[in-house]
């Protein structure tokens, strides 16, 4: 973590008091300074006063829901990192979360430790690179280019064919560079189901990606296997407009 004198400021937005009353003290103990808002309208007002380093935003809320709050925030040019707390977890909702410019999302009911890990990962990324990858239309790493809107992957100037799932997997990996992503997390994020039996599916798709991207498991330039843990995108990811 950075050598900051003040702790990171987190704005926690959820209408469920039972959640915020437990989660806020937990995050405080993890070393964050936490402000709680009960809905999107309050959150938008507080963003200016508190100037949070990161917003944890529930999707389903009365009055102004998380999705609309996020949209208004981004429209106003505010790129404060946002972690969405999703309810449904369908692929459509996940795609929406990334499209609207969320930096990450977590399905309820999540483990609070997992939330802390995600918050730290996003803050680290923002601190290091400055630029948020979440809103980028095109992500690049060396001669690899991923056009998120057109759903195309270009390597050395040539478009390479990928299955939808392999492309979504690559997108998720590139949005979380230098982070070790477990097979379970990738399954949950990309496939939408994380049955333990299915972790093999991740390996199969990673192999497909490596073949297509001409990357080897032994001497990886892009996707590294972290033995016993999962995978990590090790290429440097840049935003191209």
């Amino acid at each position: 973590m950075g050598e900051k004198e003040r702790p990171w400021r987190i704005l926690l937005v959820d209408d469920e008091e039972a959640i915020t009353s437990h989660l806020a003290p937990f995050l405080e103990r993890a070393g964050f300074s936490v402000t709680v808002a009960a809905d999107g309208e309050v959150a938008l007002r507080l963003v200016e006063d508190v100037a949070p380093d990161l917003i944890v935003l529930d999707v389903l809320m009365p009055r102004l829901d998380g999705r609309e709050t996020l949209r208004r925030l981004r429209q106003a040019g505010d790129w404060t990192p946002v972690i969405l707390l999703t309810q449904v977890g369908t692929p459509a909702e996940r795609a929406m979360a990334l499209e609207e410019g969320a930096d990450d999302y977590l399905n309820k009911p999540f483990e609070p430790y997992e939330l802390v890990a995600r918050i730290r990962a996003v803050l680290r990324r923002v601190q290091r690179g400055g630029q948020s990858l979440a809103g980028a239309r095109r992500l690049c790493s060396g001669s690899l280019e991923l056009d998120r809107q057109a759903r195309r992957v270009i390597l050395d100037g040539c478009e390479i064919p990928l299955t939808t799932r392999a492309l979504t997997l690559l997108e998720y990996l590139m949005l979380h560079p230098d982070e070790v992503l477990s097979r379970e997390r990738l399954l949950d994020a990309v496939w939408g189901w994380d049955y333990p039996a299915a972790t093999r599916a991740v390996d199969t798709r990673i192999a497909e990606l490596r073949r297509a991207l001409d990357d080897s498991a032994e001497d990886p330039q892009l996707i590294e296997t972290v033995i016993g843990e999962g995978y990590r995108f090790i290429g440097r990811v840049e935003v191209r407009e």
Partner: protein
Amino acid sequence: MRRYWLTLLPLGLGLVLAALWQAGLWPNPILYLRVDVGTLLLLLGFLGSLVWVLSLALWTTAGRRGGEEAQSCFRREQADAHRRFIRRLDHEIKNPLTAIRAGLANLTDQGDSAILSSVRAQVDRLARLSADLRKLADLDTQPVEREPVDLSLLLTELVELAQERPEAAVRHLRLTLPQAPWPLPSVAGDRDLLFLALHNLVDNALKFSRPQDTIEIRAFEDGPAVVVEVADTGPGVSEDELPHLGEELYRGNMTRDVEGSGLGLALVQAIVARHQGTMVIRSRRGQGTVVSLRLPVAR
């Protein structure tokens, strides 16, 4: 039955022919038919019976078809309502579970205890159940990939994986794939979902059979479909339990002691349905069970 107009066809034909003859294109002689009353009555009776039989046949097929339509419509509505219910239930369970997890995290921070970790384990179980139910309900609307899937390859991988399990060492696990005259054709579908479905079947066979039982996994081509069968010589299922096996959370009488979510077969059924396939289970108490999946061949 929307083709009632067909019954007017003979009349129309008659009209056209009459018009042609009346127009004088051909000679139009007058025919005198002589018939005795007895024969006339016989002919009329025969005609009446014919009309009656035909109309009866028409009515019943129309009625049956209408009934089937209404029934399948009713079933679809019921399935939709069921899915909506699961989504709502899941939604209502998620927030309290999130709150409980956060609360527990606060408690465990102040020193761990056996009781706390046991409560945590139960919360995890509930969370898992809610997630699994949810995913099952979502499977119907989720996009499914359509790529050619080589089931031979998939089954070989699956059996290799199963062989590594301790249960497999004490059971006879066999895979039979056709080689002649040609290997198994590909099916169109989502490789990962099909893997999951077949994995669940093999997993069930391993879980619910006893040591020394035989488990056969076989696949063959049958017309426009590939049939995959997972058969075991396990304890089998009684006839009255059979129809309920694909239901969510159903647990057979004899399997209460076996660990599982009770969602395995329901998931298989949902996956197979998304691939326009069918699942049939046959079983005999004391002899074993065979689950057959029919999946359409990729074109």
